[in-house]
């Protein structure tokens, strides 16, 4: 990476290092003093009650929400620094939204190839070849010329994942990717995410799917009241929660 020339220290740097992150809207504190590291290949599931700041935390990672304090380092570079080219960093951080947010005025293929062609100078042929390959893997190659509105929610979300992957990101951020789906479509999206995890993609997933967290994640983190209360490997995390708050939360959702 061209900009990897700063802050390279002796010890191995985590892919993403969150350092005393704070976010408040006016007087309302959403995140307070969050510090966490995410290594390459990590599949981190962030769980917590609604309003706990999970989505805000995730959206701060690529600065869709502007942090009000602290730093976020990616590959050792402070992406909160105003002089950092955030747009280049976002290319390395794929994001999947709850509401899919496909571009309704473009065909699926155009949705997938627009960013690589405009931002990474990939030729149309190359971009389409890669997009087709990914489409085949999610089983939607035949819908390449359809418009998003013609697809089911599950199909749209799978396309949205492919759209992010087309940029060949280093990390994928998922913001409650199955919350807007009909129950019968949740499985197809989770299965795509499982495949990704199996390919050692670094993933940060905000989710309510405890089954997915237990099965796929290597780390589960519990966010409540704007701070990480507890984190651990899923087996230990779900079987022996330490804090009262987590016990309470798991008691409600499991």
């Amino acid at each position: 990476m061209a900009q990897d020339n700063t802050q390279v220290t002796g010890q191995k740097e985590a892919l993403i290092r969150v350092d005393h992150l704070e976010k408040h809207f006016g007087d309302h504190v959403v995140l307070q003093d969050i510090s966490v590291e995410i290594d390459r290949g990590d599949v981190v599931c962030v769980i917590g009650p609604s309003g706990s700041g999970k989505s805000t935390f995730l959206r701060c990672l690529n600065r869709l929400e502007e942090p009000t304090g602290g730093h976020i380092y990616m590959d050792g570079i402070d992406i909160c620094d105003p002089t950092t080219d955030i747009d280049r960093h976002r290319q390395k951080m794929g994001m999947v939204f709850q509401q899919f947010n496909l571009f309704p005025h473009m065909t699926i293929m155009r949705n997938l190839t627009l960013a690589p062609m405009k931002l990474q100078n990939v030729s149309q042929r190359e971009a389409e070849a890669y997009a087709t390959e990914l489409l085949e893997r999610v089983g939607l190659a035949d819908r390449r010329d359809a418009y998003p509105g013609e697809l089911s929610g599950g199909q749209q979300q799978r396309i949205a994942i492919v759209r992010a992957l087309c940029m060949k990101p280093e990390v994928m951020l998922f913001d409650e990717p199955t919350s807007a789906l009909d129950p019968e479509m949740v499985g197809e999206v989770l299965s795509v995410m499982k495949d990704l995890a199996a390919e050692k993609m670094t993933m940060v997933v905000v989710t309510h799917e405890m089954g997915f967290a237990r099965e796929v994640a290597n780390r589960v983190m519990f966010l409540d009241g704007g701070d990480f209360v507890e984190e651990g490997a899923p087996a230990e995390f779900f079987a022996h929660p330490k804090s009262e708050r987590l016990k309470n939360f798991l008691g409600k959702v499991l």
Partner: protein
Amino acid sequence: MWQQFRSDLYLNFVKDDRWQYLTNGLKVTLIVTLFAALMGIILGFFVAIVRSTCENTGRLKILNAICNLYLTVIRGTPVVVQLMIIYFVIFASVRIDKTFTAIIAFGINSGAYQAEIFRSGIQSVPRGQFEAGRSLGFNYAQTMLHIIMPQALRVCVPTLCNEYITLLKETSVAGYIALEDLTKGGDIIRSRTYSAFMPLIAVALIYLIMVLVLTRLVSLLERRLARGTR
């Protein structure tokens, strides 16, 4: 009665080639409308971008304040007053082409209305579209260009077309700066023949036909656009 009608027709349109007041006026009306609409598009687009950018990002505050002032003044005063201010005040002591003056005046006026149409179009695109664009790595301008604008335009095309129809009718006050547009052409005939009916009805009919044709085009366009969005 038929005889009277025919002699009225002759007096108002045929005698002294008076019909030319209408055809020449129509030409001026169309030229002014067309170029004012174009100028309005550029101006309106620019203002809408500035306003939306300021609303979304908090940047361009000073430019935004200027745009707001422009919108307030232009939408808060009658176009005929603006026209006369531009002719008699802004371009005081300048020998300036009147068609050009009218295009400037109506262009500035239409720009204000088109700006609000563009802006509401931009505002109608869900916030998630903007975030999806930014999260892929597009900068603000690229996101606007590739993702927001195409969707916004689709929403505002019908409203825009109605604005152009309104503009066509509003240019009828061009006579206030002695520009001989369609309405003024009818007025001149009226002042020559002292009959109100023929010239006024003829002028009204010509406007009506133009508006009907434009309305028809708009509804065709709307149907095509509706087919495009799925």
